[in-house]
Structure formats: C-alpha cells, structure tokens
C-alpha cells in the first residue's frame, strides 16, 4: 500500500521529500562508488532492483484468508543492505508510480521514507541484533521481514495522521484511525511476509549459497568450508 498521488498536502509532500533526500543521496553515493570500483555491479544491482519489483508484485495469502502484496523490504535489506535498498526502493517506487499507478510522484518522498528507508533500516537493525545475540538465521530473517513490513505501514499511518489530524483529538486520534485501517490490518500480512521470507531464504540457502555468501548473508569462510566438503565428497 502506497500513499496515492496528490493525497498529501504540498507542504507535507515536500517535507517528506526533504527528509528522504539524505538517505537516498547516501545510497546513490554508495551505489556510484560500487559501480565505479566494480562496473559489473550495474547488472547485479539492476537484477536486484528487478527482483525487488517482481517480489512486490507477488500475491501473498494472508493468515486471515485475504490477499496482499509483500513489501520485500526485509528480504531486500538482508540481501543488499539498507543504503542500496534506499536507491533500489526509490527506483521501484518510481516504476510502480508510472507503470502500475501505485503511489505517486508528489508522494514519492513520503513513500520512499516509509518503504525504502524506515522499513529496510528497521528490518536490518532487528536482523543484525538477533544474529549478534546468536539467534538462528531463519528466526532472525522472520523477525526482520515482520518488523520491516509492519514499521513501513506504521510510518505510513503517522504520515497520514500528521497530514489529516482528527478535528476532536488531533494527531493521536487520527493515528488511531489510520493505524486501525492501515497498520493493525497489516499485522497478519506482516506475519505472512515473515513466513514467506523464511521459505524464500531457505530455498536460496540450498540453491544459491554462493550468491548469498557474496552478498554477505553467509560468512565467507562458510563458503570455503562448503567447497572443501564438496571437494572431499567428490
């Protein structure tokens, strides 16, 4: 769910654009540096962007029986890191606005802030924290995807509440209204996205361990160990 075109008043749209700008600029710098050092990264990053775009187009069955789309921000942040996700997320949101009429150009800053910045950073922070405390990989992946998804929609509710405060109870009342529609209903979907991300990661761990090691999900010595085991088996 993205904030639709023209939904936010001009001052709010500009303010969220300004708030997102430093993160996107930081991401652009990281991406430019990476591409200059390794020109072949352009193709890998493009593939990652396409993967993020396609992931957000998959239909996700909710645990309550309804259906929605995953945000993909948790998985993206684990695989590609939050600064890169800020750029890939911005590109994906631009494509969604122009190719699918999801979101908008005037609300791009607000959507980038919730989906490409807060979601990935929150998910990645939870993932790193849990991994450092020795929590198994798949448990950390579940909570990263869950938190990334839910925090995205909580921020969207805050953005809407700030733009349209309740006439009686102000910001808090509006937050309750928008939160009950856009964030609380998202809890089962966030659980679903957590499960889906775990299943995808399990399959990737079996089929693409090399890529995951190169992306830093698995430590490099683990790849060496796997290769040695394979060599011994041969």
């Amino acid at each position, binding site marked *: 769910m993205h904030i639709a*075109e023209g939904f936010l008043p001009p001052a709010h749209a500009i303010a969220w654009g300004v708030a997102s700008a430093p993160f996107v600029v930081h991401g652009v710098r990281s991406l430019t540096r990476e591409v200059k050092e390794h020109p072949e990264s352009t193709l890998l990053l493009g593939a990652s962007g396409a*993967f993020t775009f396609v992931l957000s187009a998959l239909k996700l069955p909710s645990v309550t029986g309804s259906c929605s789309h995953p945000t993909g921000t948790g998985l993206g942040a684990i695989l590609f890191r939050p600064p890169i996700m800020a750029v890939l997320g911005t590109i994906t949101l*631009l494509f969604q606005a122009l190719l699918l009429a999801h979101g908008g150009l005037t609300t791009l800053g607000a959507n980038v802030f919730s989906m490409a910045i807060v979601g990935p950073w929150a998910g990645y922070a939870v993932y790193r924290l849990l991994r450092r405390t020795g929590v198994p990989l798949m448990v950390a992946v579940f909570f990263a995807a869950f938190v990334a998804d839910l925090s995205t929609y909580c921020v969207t509710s805050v953005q809407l509440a700030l733009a349209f405060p309740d*006439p009686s109870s102000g910001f808090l009342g509006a937050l309750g209204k928008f939160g009950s529609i856009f964030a609380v209903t998202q809890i089962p979907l966030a659980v679903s996205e957590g499960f889906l991300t775990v299943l995808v990661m399990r399959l990737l761990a079996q089929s693409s361990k090399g890529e995951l090691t190169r992306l830093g999900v698995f430590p490099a010595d683990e790849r060496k160990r796997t290769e040695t085991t394979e060599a011994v088996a041969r």
Partner: protein
Amino acid sequence: MLPIDEAAHSSRWRRRHPVDKAVLGLGLTVLAISLPPWPGAALVMMTALTVMLGPAGVPGRRLWRAYRVPLGFCVTGAATLLVRVGGDGFVGLAEGGPQRAGELLLRTSAASLGVLLFAFTTPMSDLLPRLVKAGVPAPVVDVALVTYRMSFLLLDSVRSVRQAQAARLGHTTRAAAWRSLAGLGATAFVRAFDRAARLQNGLAGRGYDGTLRVLVPKARVSARFTTASAALLAALITLTLVLEGPLS
C-alpha cells in the same frame, strides 16, 4: 509488458519529447494539489480526462483499469475523515467531514489523472536515458535501465512458473500455495542473478567499460506544444480564481 507502458508505446504522442508531456501532465498534477479543490481540482480533472480521451487517444478501458488502483486507496483514506475520535461520545461523525473527504477525493483523483496522462503517453525507455541530462547520476540511470528491462523478463518467467505450478496442483491446498509462492520468489532471485551473470559475460565480450549505451528515439522539445500547455495551465489557474468566489 505492463498495460500502461504498452499503451505508452502505441500512444499518439509517443514521438513527442518527454519534456512536452511532462509540462502538461505533471503541470496538471501540480495544479491539482496546489489549487483549491473546488473548483480547481475539478477543472483539472475534466481537462486531464478531455486531453487523455481526446488528443492523446488513451483507451478509456485501460485508463479506468489503471485509475481504479489509486482510487481504492483514496476512498479508504478519505472515509477516515468522515469520523472523529474523542469529544462527545467516543466515536462520531466529524463536523465538515464529508466536505473534507470530498475535497480530498477531488484533489487525489485530479492529481492521479495528471500523472496518468504522462505515464500513458511516455514509455519508460524514452524517459530513463534522458534523466542523466536532468542531473541524475549515470550509474543510477544505468541500474534503473537494467531494472526496467529485466523486470519484464522476470515477470514473464514468474508468470510461466506460476502456470507450471498451477498445472502441477501447486495451489490446491494452503500448504502447497505457500510452498509454490516461496519457490516462485526463490526462482525469481536465481533467474535474476543468472541473467545478470550472462549479461555480464555477453557485455564483457563486447568491451563493456561500465557504461550502457542505448539508442534513444530522437525527439525535439516543441515550443508550440509547451507554450500551448503553459497557456492551458494559466487558463485553469485564472478560471479557478474567477469561479472560486461564486461557486464556494
């Protein structure tokens, strides 16, 4: 290909420079959010619809299919303005709520139509390479170009895999549907990276130096078109200011 991009490729205004269409489409969007919703946004909405269904030749059915997506969000979001929380009783109807919700719906609908006018007439492949001239760093534009081109291939792959899964009864039970969906996500990842590796090998054989050079259809900014668009926007502003008093 996605319906909006497909329509853009066969649009009557396909050969026009993106700047021409941005002045008109995005200009209408800016007016929609900055003018008073009544009568400003209403006038913008009517103008955008007239231009799209008339001179731009956007198919009505495709437009409706694209337009109902943002409309769903707008209706849900605007409905919250009808209700107030707190005050006398815990929940009640908000004073002036219907008016605020109506104005929001008008503004959002008009702004969405402005962007749709631009999207339905400007293929992404015409727009992206020109972003470098607008100051976007070349590496970011290159990544966006690869993302754009690879997205369609991946969407095609995902569609085929989904059909194959359905043919193998992969969606009959809840557990099977989850397994299939996870397989779909993982396959998309594997195929994206495999395609990137093969592209890299192919480009390396052709002396790839990190810059993707693509042919962009030649088009010139039309002074007549942009002037006419600016005049139309100015007329909308004037008409709104003139009508605002009598109609409010």
